[in-house]
């Protein structure tokens, strides 16, 4: 069952097309990752799906309601948390929770139960009177998520929720996201951190307002990266790097600690080619050569570069 259906959604600001004919579906209970560089159109899309920005054309069904025809219904059925948490720093924990309970019009009886729930997931039980500004970043982030879903929405939109939060807190936050998803809440999340995208069930990559890749993390790695990436462990790393840079079978070279990563192309035959070059011609000892699984960051960079080339050939 689809929780969100996006059909040919387009948004223009004057002559600039921020979102260009985008269509995709999100299943109920899924964690859906929405990736792209700054200015790719992520936030504009999310704002339209939250019915706070009108599309120029196209439509989306968000939890059974059309963003064009039933924007108020859409707003009631979703939760939204942005990169700058919407909490009031000069209010206490409890006052913030009360505020959001009021905004979403929760009944008294239901509210008390939900308030307890928010305090629990944010690890703030017994700290109701603490001033929000004095909370550590990771805790504040959990409180922000709790208040964003205090009304038990079917869908929650998280716009770069982990920006500037350390890795341990980020991981705990993702555990929480998975908990929400296992309760059947659909989560659409944008992020800069590609290792986080690994935690998503499905991923879309957008650039210049258009979808340029989509699939699960495994599918993206299989379908979009055709070139092999090799990790070479050798001595005299810098010398080896300079030699490899000049070879016609190498597309890209980078230092990785005490080893080198190279992206090879069709001119590459086998390991012997590298061993011959480095060991025989330059007396650099090669200890190991392994082919490695690309990361999502590799996919992202690769697809973006292809998109750039396509774009410039059209112009």
């Amino acid at each position, binding site marked *: 069952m689809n929780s969100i259906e996006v059909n040919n959604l387009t948004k223009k600001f004057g002559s600039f097309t921020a979102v260009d004919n985008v269509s995709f579906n999100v299943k109920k209970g899924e964690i859906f990752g929405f990736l792209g560089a700054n200015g790719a159109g992520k936030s504009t899309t999310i704002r339209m799906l939250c019915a706070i920005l009108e599309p120029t054309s196209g439509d989306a069904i968000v939890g059974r309601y059309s963003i064009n025809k039933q924007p108020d219904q859409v707003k009631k059925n979703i939760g939204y948390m942005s990169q700058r948490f919407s909490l009031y720093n000069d209010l206490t924990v409890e006052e913030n929770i009360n505020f959001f309970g009021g905004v979403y019009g929760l009944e008294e009886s239901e509210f008390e139960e939900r308030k307890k729930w928010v305090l629990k997931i944010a690890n703030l039980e017994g700290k109701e009177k603490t001033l929000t500004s004095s909370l550590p970043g990771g805790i504040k982030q959990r409180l922000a998520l709790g208040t964003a879903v205090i009304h038990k929405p079917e869908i929650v939109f998280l716009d770069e929720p982990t920006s500037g939060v350390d890795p341990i807190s980020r991981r705990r936050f993702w555990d929480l996201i998975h908990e929400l998803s296992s309760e059947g809440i659909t989560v659409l999340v944008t992020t800069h951190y*590609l290792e986080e995208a690994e935690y998503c069930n499905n991923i879309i990559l957008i650039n210049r307002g258009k979808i340029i890749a989509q699939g699960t993390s495994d599918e993206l790695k299989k379908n979009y990266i055709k070139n092999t990436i090799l990790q070479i462990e050798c001595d005299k790393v810098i010398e080896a790097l*300079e030699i490899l840079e000049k070879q016609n079978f190498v597309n890209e070279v980078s*230092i990785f600690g005490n080893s080198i990563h190279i992206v090879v192309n069709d001119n590459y035959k086998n390991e012997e080619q590298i061993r011959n070059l480095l060991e025989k011609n330059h007396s650099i000892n090669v200890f190991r050569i392994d082919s490695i699984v690309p990361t999502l960051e590799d996919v992202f*960079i690769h697809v973006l570069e292809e998109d750039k080339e396509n774009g410039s050939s059209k112009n």
Partner: protein
Amino acid sequence: MEAIIKIKSLKKSYDDIKAVKDISLEVYEGEMFGLVGPDGAGKTTTIRILCGLLKPESGSVKIFEKDIIKNKKEIQNQIGYLSQKFSLYGDLSIDENIEFFADIHGVKDYQQRRDELLEFTRLKPFRNRIAEKLSGGMKQKLALACSLIHKPKIIFLDEPTTGVDPVSRRDFWKILSGLIKEKITIVLTTPYLDEAERCNRVALMNKGEIISLDTPNKIKQALEKEIIEIVCTKIREAYKLIRDEIGFEVQMFGDRINVIINNIEKDYPKIEKALKEHSVEILNYRKITPSLENIFIHLVRKAG
């Protein structure tokens, strides 16, 4: 290899918070050294002490065999520092910003070095643009160029890639590779464990202490355990089951879990049996090479 930075029993507190608790380490000439850990681990405090910007409570820092407190000015002329919140002059152009930093460091013939740096960071086409009109990634590259104008032998970078998008991040790492080629020693802090893998050696820090210090490979080898990755249904249930009933350490990564075990042949059947009994379906499992993230979480948990 020669130690270019020597830190001994360094301590620093802010009121009653012990930010850095007795750390000792050496950084070798020409290496890329990473201070890695979450917020509050003491990374920034350490790097500021190394640059002479903050006085330690006790302990010593020697750079080029000289004490940082006694020879602050002299050392500062040979090092570069890029802070988390780098300060550029928004109303000055790229060229003028670099010129300003050349002035501060008393570099007179900076023109050639400036051109080199602009070439290197690919900012040349934008040299007349004022700083506030640059993208985040470009600002960061400019700040780096400014900190390199006086040809420092060591450069200290405090979380240089925090909040930077993936494309700019990749670009930045390419530039750092170039610095390593110029034999500049790099000390950087990062909360990202995938970036730590790019360093020659790393100090994993938590709550003001170093919990591991070595090359990324050796840190991984020191685990002396095996990690098995399981993709299964009812993931949260599986997680709690393995943790509480079988007693193995489990780490959750989205739709999969990593279990730290002693031996796959001996231990996997136990996990399989327990999961089956609770009708959790295993979709896939495989032995994986530990990542620094696996290790980091393991060490932090062990420390309590």
